[in-house]
C-alpha cells in the first residue's frame, strides 16, 4: 500500500494520462487516428513551450504571471518587424527570421527585467510579474491600436502551417500528415530543458536555489544570477511561442492572444508534479501535463459536453491529478 502511494506520487500524472487514453480508445471510434494523435501533441505546443520555461522558474520557488501578456507584446513586435522588413523588400524568409529574432529578443529582455526586479530588487515574483501582466498587455495594445495587427507576408502563415510529413501516414482528407514546426519546437525545448536541468551545473543551481536559498548562498552559488537566468530563459521561450502562434494566426490580436496562458502553463507544471514551493520538479511531467490538458479539451468536444460545464470538468481533473500525486505523505 505504501509502495502504491509512493508510485502514484511519482508517476500519478502518467497513470492519469494512460487511464484517459484507454477510456478514449474504448469509447471513441475516431480517437486512435494518426490525425487526432497529431492534434493532441500539437494543439497546445505554444502553451507547452512556455510551460517548460515556467517549470524552471517555479523550481527556483518563483512564478511568472506575465507570460500571457508577453505573448501579445512579442507577437505584436514580431508582426510589425515582419511587415516592416517586407515593406523594405527583404526576402520573405529573411523577414520571418527577423520577426522571430525580434520576438525572442524582446521576450528575453522582458524576462530579464522580471528577473532583475525579483533577484536584485527583492520584490516577490508574484508582484513583479503581476505588474508585467498588466504592463506588457498594455504595450501590446498600444502597438496594435487596441486591435489586431495583420501580417502582410503570406509566407508567414505558410510557415505557421509548415512542418515535416510523417512517411506512411496520411490524414482523413488523404493529404500528408504534417508534424508542425511548433511541435518540433515544443519537443526540442523539452529535451534541451531536461538536459539543462539534469546534466548541467545550472540545473543543479536551479534546484539548490529553489530547495533552500540560504544553503545555496552558503555554497557560493550566485543565486541572483540563477534567478535572472531562469526568468530570461522563460522570456525567450515566450518569444518563441509568440512568433509561432502569430504565424499560425497570420496576425496578432493584441487584446486576445495569450489570455490565460499563464494559468494554463502553471496548471500543466503543477499537474506534472513540480512543487510550487520550489526545488523539486521535472520537465517530462510538464510535457505530460500539457498533453493531459489537451486531451481533456479534445474529449469534451468529442462527448459534446455543454460549454457551461467544461470549466468544472477541467478544474476537477487538475485537482484530481494533483491529489493523486499527494496520496503518499505531504508531497513536498
Amino acid at each position, binding site marked *: 500500500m505504501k509502495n502504491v502511494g509512493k508510485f502514484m506520487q511519482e508517476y500519478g500524472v502518467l497513470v492519469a494520462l494512460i487511464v484517459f487514453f484507454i477510456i478514449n480508445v474504448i469509447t471513441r471510434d475516431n480517437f486512435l487516428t494518426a490525425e*487526432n494523435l497529431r*492534434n493532441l501533441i500539437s494543439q497546445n505546443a505554444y502553451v507547452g513551450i512556455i510551460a517548460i520555461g515556467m517549470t524552471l522558474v517555479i523550481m527556483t520557488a518563483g512564478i511568472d504571471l506575465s507570460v500571457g501578456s508577453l505573448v501579445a507584446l512579442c507577437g505584436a513586435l514580431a508582426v510589425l518587424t515582419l511587415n516592416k522588413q517586407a515593406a523594405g523588400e527583404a526576402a520573405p524568409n529573411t523577414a520571418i527570421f527577423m520577426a522571430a529574432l525580434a520576438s525572442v529578443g524582446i521576450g528575453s529582455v522582458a524576462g530579464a527585467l522580471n528577473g532583475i526586479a525579483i533577484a*536584485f530588487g527583492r520584490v516577490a515574483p508574484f508582484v513583479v510579474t503581476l505588474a508585467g501582466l498588466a504592463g506588457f498587455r498594455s504595450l501590446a495594445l498600444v502597438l496594435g491600436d*487596441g486591435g489586431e495587427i*495583420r501580417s502582410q507576408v503570406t509566407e508567414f502563415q505558410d510557415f505557421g502551417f509548415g512542418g515535416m510529413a510523417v512517411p506512411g501516414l496520411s*490524414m482523413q482528407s488523404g493529404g500528408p500528415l504534417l508534424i508542425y514546426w511548433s511541435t518540433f519546437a515544443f519537443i526540442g525545448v523539452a529535451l534541451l530543458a531536461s538536459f539543462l536541468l539534469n546534466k548541467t551545473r545550472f540545473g543543479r543551481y536551479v534546484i539548490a536555489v529553489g530547495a533552500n536559498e540560504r544553503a545555496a548562498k552558503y555554497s557560493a552559488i550566485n543565486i541572483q544570477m540563477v534567478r535572472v537566468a531562469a526568468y530570461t530563459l522563460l522570456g525567450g521561450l515566450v518569444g518563441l511561442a509568440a512568433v509561432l502562434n502569430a504565424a499560425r494566426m497570420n496576425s496578432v490580436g493584441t487584446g486576445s492572444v495569450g489570455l490565460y496562458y499563464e494559468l494554463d502553463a502553471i496548471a500543466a507544471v503543477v499537474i506534472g508534479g513540480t512543487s510550487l514551493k520550489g526545488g523539486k520538479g521535472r520537465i517530462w511531467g510538464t510535457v505530460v501535463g500539457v498533453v493531459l490538458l489537451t486531451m481533456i479539451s479534445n474529449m469534451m*468536444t468529442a462527448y459534446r459536453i455543454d460549454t457551461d460545464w467544461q470549466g468544472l470538468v477541467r478544474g476537477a481533473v487538475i485537482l484530481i491529478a494533483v491529489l493523486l500525486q499527494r496520496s503518499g505523505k505531504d508531497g513536498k
Partner: protein
Amino acid sequence: MLKNLMTLAAGAAILGLTVGCQPGTDVGNGTPADDERFVVGVSIPAADHGWTAGVKWWADEAKKNYPNIDWIIEDAKSPDEQITDLENLRSQNVDALVILATESAPLTPMAKQLHDAGILIINVDRGFTEPAADVFIEGDNAAFGRKSAEYMAAKLNGTGKIVVLEGIPSTVNTARVEAAAKVFAQYPGIEIVAQDSGMWNRETSEKVMQNILVANSEIDAIWASDDDMALGVENALRAAGRRDGVWILGGAGMKDIVKRVMDGDPLYPADITYPPSMIAVGIHEAASILRAGRANALKYIPKHIVLDVDLVTPDNAADYYFPESVY
C-alpha cells in the same frame, strides 16, 4: 544602495507616468467662454476580442464628429472595473453617458443611480435589467441567428451536415443560437453533427474544429456565428486539408471576411453583420439629444432602437467594407 537606487528609479518612473497622463485625463476644463460645452462619458468593455476592439475604434471615430463636446472614453475588463469607471465619470460632472455594459445585471444598479442623478443614459448592445436608460440601442441578436440559419439552410437546399460553433456563454450568444436552432429544426434534412463553443476566439475555435473534423468525415458547412471563430475554423480546415467543398458562415462583419465575400471566395459565400459601429449610433444620439435640449429631444427620440442585422453577399459587400477600421 542598489535597492535604494531602484526605489528611486521606480518612483521617478511612476511620477513620470502620472505627469505624462495629465493632459489626457484633464479634459473637463474646455473653453470657459463656451457655456454650451458638454461632457460625455463613454464606458465600454476592454478589447478582449476583435469585435470589442472594433467598438473602441468606432467610438474614437464617432467622437471626432463632435469636437465641441468633451469626450471621455473608458474601457473596463470587468463589471467591477466598469462600475468604478462610471463613478469616476460621475465625479467629472458628465452630462451624458454612453454605456456598453460588460455584463447587464451588475451594471444596472449603478446606471439607475446615475440616471436618477439626472445624467442622460444611452445604453448600447447589452441592456440593463431594469429601466435605467433614456435610450437603448441594440443589435437584433435573434435576427442574427435566424437570418444566418435561414441563409445556411437555403444554400444547402435543406439537406446537409453542419457544425454549430457558439460564442462565450451569455445572453447575446443564447439569443443567437436559440434562434438559429429553431430554423434548423424546421429542416429535417439538416443534421447538426457537432456543437461546441469557440469562445469568440480564433485559437480556441481552431482547436475545437480540429477535434470535430477528426470525428466527422463529412461536413458541408460551419455555422461559426463570429468572424474570429470563422478564421479559426478555416485554420483547422487548412491543417486537415479539407478546405474544398465546405463553407463557413461567420458573423459580425470583420473587414477581412467582408473583403473575401466581396472577392467571391468559395469558403465565405456570405457574412452577417453585427456592427461594432453601434457604439457610434449611441454617441450620435447622446450628442444630438444634448444639443437639441434634453427635455425636448426625448419627446420624439425613440426609447428603444433595434438595429437590424444584414446579410452580406458578394452583391452588397462593398457597402459593408471599411478598410480603415481595425475590425
